Every structure is written in structure tokens, then in C-alpha cells.
């Protein structure tokens, strides 16, 4: 659905994005992750035909964004980061205007606007000017205008920013639902959100894609530290000694380990050893109560920090 090849954009001397290539299939949600100024918005702007690339090609739904811009624009819904809206228009009037420009049949416009307003929770704001709305509601209007023509491709620049937690959950499930038969690219700085919604994640930094894969396999690839966290009730020295006897344990860290109270143990295993069952068995054999047992994988956050700060490529 979206094919990007060797896309480069320079602003004078400065590089916006540098040789980016990726593909997104139909029914897939791709998340852009990256620090500010990494090139996420630039990439989105090129895909939505707002600005041209310096070199490289991008095709959306089979149409080139430069050569066939009108056909691309017919098939996309775009929510820019700043959510630019006409503040002097009433909400439904604005949505009808967008629906008209997006070539919806005249007879369907009114019904469609009412439907989309209900979908994003704007029905009770129908008599308000956009300028009177709070940031969260403007965000919903922005989403509504992007969705109004049921586009094949949705490009959302930070779609959940400024929403309240309940609305965030609603919008996320809305996006997930839409993603079933559409192609979606979204950017976010909320890392759990990306791993929750997106089938694949592209980590962008300094204008380049540093990693692109599913959140799970990104985690898998980068699981350098193999640790298990356990909360065990028992005499700390005994527990520590017992855990130390497990083959393949490299290091044990004890927190709150005074007396017989519960203590938190962080056990580091050698690579390739599945730690949790071993820790559980040790606890049972020692007749200690096991309260918590957590294998510690790297979160997307850790991966992100690692890639961005250590400049490690795992493409």
C-alpha cells in the first residue's frame, strides 16, 4: 500500500531525512518512534504530498506522491501534528466542508458527518465554533476530518496527544479497528501506545530508520540482559544462597533483604537460560513463599533509548 524507496529530504544544508526505505502493507499499522526533529513529520508530509522529497520515490496506493498527487490525496486521511483547523467555523460545518472537498457524494455528506461526530465523541459539541473547543476536542475534530472519507491510508501525526485517558483508550481502539482493512502510519512519543497499537515499529533518529520490526521481535533482538525479578518471603541469606546454587546464575541483587520479611531479588542468568522456572523451583524446594515472579524483558522504552543513545543499528 505504501512503498518508500531511498527517500531523502534536505533543507538547505540540513538533512531532514536521509535515505529512508520501508513498505507498509494493507491492514498494517506502522508506528514511527523517534526523538523530536528525527524526521517523522517530514516523512509524513512527503507521503501526504504536502512537500516534495529531494530524491527517492514514495508510492501510496500505487500512485506516486509527486507524479500523481491528486490520486494519492483522494485516498489518504491526514492528521497533522498541530491540528490546523479553521477556528471561525462550527464543528459540523467544517466537517461538511472537508467532506465536500474529499469528494463525498452530496447526499451522503450530512449523514456521514453525523456518524463520524458520534464515532469520535463530538455530537454534543455540534453548536460550538472550533475556536471555542479545548485541545482534546480539537484533536477529535482533526481525527474526524481525517476519517471522513473512509480513506485507504491514514497518516496520523501524534493522534492521541492532548486527549484524556478515557478518550485515548477509545481512540486507540478506534485506530486498531480501522487498521484491520486499512493502512495506517502513526507517530507517537508514548512508547507503550506504539507497542499496543502498531503491528510494526520504525525507530527513526537523525533522519534515518534505525530499526523496523514488530515490537516483539525488537524486544527479542535486543534482549541482552536476561534477568528475573522475584519477591520471596524467607531469610534473605538462605534465599540468596539457594538462588546462587542454580547453575547459570551470574549475579543476584537483593533489595529490602533484612530478616525474614519479603525481599526483592533480581537474578541475572547467563544467556540462553530460561530463568523463571528455576527460580520458582528453588523457592518451592526451600519452602519459601513466592509472591512475585517477573521475567525482565527490555521494554520498547529501553530499546528506544538504547538505539537512540548508543547509535546501535539493528536493521
Amino acid at each position, binding site marked *: 500500500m505504501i512503498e518508500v524507496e531511498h527517500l531523502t*529530504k534536505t533543507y538547505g544544508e540540513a538533512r531532514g531525512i536521509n535515505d529512508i526505505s520501508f513498505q507498509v502493507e494493507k491492514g498494517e499499522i506502522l508506528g514511527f518512534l523517534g526523538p523530536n526533529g528525527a524526521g517523522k513529520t517530514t516523512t509524513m508530509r512527503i507521503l501526504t504530498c504536502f512537500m516534495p522529497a529531494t530524491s527517492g520515490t514514495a508510492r501510496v496506493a500505487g500512485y506516486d506522491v509527486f507524479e500523481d498527487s491528486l490520486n494519492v*490525496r483522494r485516498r489518504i486521511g491526514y492528521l497533522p501534528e498541530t491540528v490546523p483547523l*479553521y477556528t471561525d*467555523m462550527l464543528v459540523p460545518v467544517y466537517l461538511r466542508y472537508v467532506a465536500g472537498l474529499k469528494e463525498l457524494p452530496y447526499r451522503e455528506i450530512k449523514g456521514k458527518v453525523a456518524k463520524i461526530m458520534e464515532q469520535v465523541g463530538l455530537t454534543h459539541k455540534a453548536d460550538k465554533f472550533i475556536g471555542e473547543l479545548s485541545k482534546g476536542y480539537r484533536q477529535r475534530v482533526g481525527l474526524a*476530518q481525517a476519517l471522513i472519507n473512509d480513506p485507504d491510508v491514514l497518516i496520523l501525526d501524534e493522534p492521541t496527544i492532548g486527549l484524556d485517558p478515557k478518550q485515548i483508550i477509545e481512540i486507540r481502539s478506534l485506530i486498531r479497528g480501522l487498521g484491520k482493512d486499512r493502512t495506517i502510519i502513526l507517530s507517537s512519543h508514548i512508547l507503550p501506545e506504539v507497542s499496543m497499537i502498531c503491528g510494526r515499529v520504525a525507530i527513526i533518529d537523525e533522519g534515518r530508520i534505525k530499526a523496523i520490526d514488530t515490537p516483539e521481535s525488537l524486544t527479542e533482538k535486543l534482549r541482552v540482559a536476561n534477568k528475573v525479578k522475584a519477591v520471596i518471603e524467607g531469610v534473605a541469606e538462605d534465599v540468596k544462597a539457594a538462588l546462587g546454587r542454580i547453575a547459570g546464575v551470574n549475579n543476584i541483587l537483593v533489595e529490602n533483604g533484612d530478616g525474614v520479611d519479603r525481599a526483592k531479588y533480581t537474578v541475572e542468568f547467563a544467556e540462553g537460560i530460561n530463568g523463571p522456572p528455576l527460580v520458582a523451583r528453588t523457592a518451592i524446594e526451600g519452602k519459601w513463599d513466592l509472591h512475585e515472579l517477573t521475567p525482565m524483558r527490555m521494554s520498547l522504552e529501553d530499546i528506544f533509548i538504547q538505539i537512540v543513545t548508543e547509535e546501535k543499528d539493528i536493521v
Partner: protein
Amino acid sequence: MRNFLFILLKEVRSYINSSVAFVVVTIFSVLTGYYFYNIFASFSTISFQAQTDPTMATQYGALNVTEFVIRPFFGIISVVMLIMLPMLTMRSFSEEKKTGTMELLLTFPVRDGEAIMGKFGGCMAIFFLMLTLSFPSILLVELFGDPEWGVIITGYFGLILMGGGFIALGIFMSSITENQIVAAVLSFAALLILYMLNFTAGAAGETMSAVLNYLSFTYHYRNFAKGVIDTSDVIYYLLFTLFFIFLSMRSLESKRWRG
């Protein structure tokens, strides 16, 4: 065509909601109305004096309401247009650029030409409203005098053509900057130069004065004010309008390829 109408309607609505239309139309009506009152009242005084004093009548020649009231009235309308229309056109693209709504407009499936013509149409609609509000003054002349309707019709026709040129130029200026004040000043200056161009024609050489005359707005309006429609004047205004609409299109289009 559809997109053109949607944008036109949206523009008109924005002008009305943001009270720009209200202010511009009101001030236009007040200025032209005040001038009309003065000139019509002085015509009535002179006519009255001429009636009682035959020597006065010879001094002014034949007193003609069309020449004495209608023609200067159209002249002042064109001057007020020169001041007010840049206020109307300055926001058309500048505001969209400043607030970022341009980003969405350009990613909608709208051709550049449709966007520009929609904006142009929106300004023209408000401009028509302005002209319509000047019409009661003409009716007042009809009520008390006997104006020539041919001159009135060609006069309005000329004003519409001229207004189209002003608006096209204003929209172009607005498309090259994101600052509304810069857009307004640029279009006001450009219009003023074109308006005054033939003032110096008398002092210039023969060839130069012909060129200056031909380029100026006022020179081409002369015939309309006399009740004559000269195709060269019509073509001048139409070409002027088309030229600036063309430039606006290039200016908008350049956004898509300029790096």
C-alpha cells in the same frame, strides 16, 4: 467545479463569521455614501441657482446629472475599492499559511486552480455585496433626476472588471507571504502605482505616455464611465485578472516542487 463552490461558500462564511465582511462593507458604504451625499447635494444647489439665475446656467454649461453625479460617484467607488479590497484579499492564503490550515488544504484532493478560484469567488461575492449597497444611491438619482441608464450599466460593468483585477492581484500577494500585513501593503502599493500611472503620462514623451496610459487602471475606466464598452478595455481588465490568477497558481504550485 464542486470544490470551487465548496471553497467559495466557506470563504464567504469565514468573511461573515470573522466580521471582516461586515467592517469592509460598512466602511465602503459609509465612505461612498458620504461622497454621494456631498456631490448630489451640491448638484441640487447648483441646479436651483441655475434656475433662478440664468447667468449661472451659462457658466456651468448644460447641467447633466449623469456627468455631474454618476460619473464622479463611480470614480470614488473605484478609489474606495482600491483601499478596501486589499483588506479583503490579504487573509486569503496568508492566514491559511500562518495558522497551518494550508497543510490540510493542500493534502485534500483539491486542484490548485480550484482553491484559487474559490478564494477569488469568495472575495468577488463580498465585492458584489459592496456594489449592491451602492445601488440605492443611484436609485435616489433616478427618483429626483433623469440619469442615463446606459452609463450606469457600463459603469458597474467596468467596476466589476476592475474589482476582479484588484482581487486577483491581492490574492497573488497573499499567496507569496504568510504575513497578512505584508500582503495588504504589497497589494495596496501595487494597485496605487497602477492607479496613478497615467497621472504622469502628460509629462512623459509621446510613446512613453501611451504606454503609461495603457498600463494604468484609471485610463481604461474612462470609457466605461462615458457609457462606452471598448473591447480593448475589457481585455485589459480580463488579462490583468487572469495574469494574477496564473501567478497565484504558479506560486501555490511551487510549494509542491520547491525543495
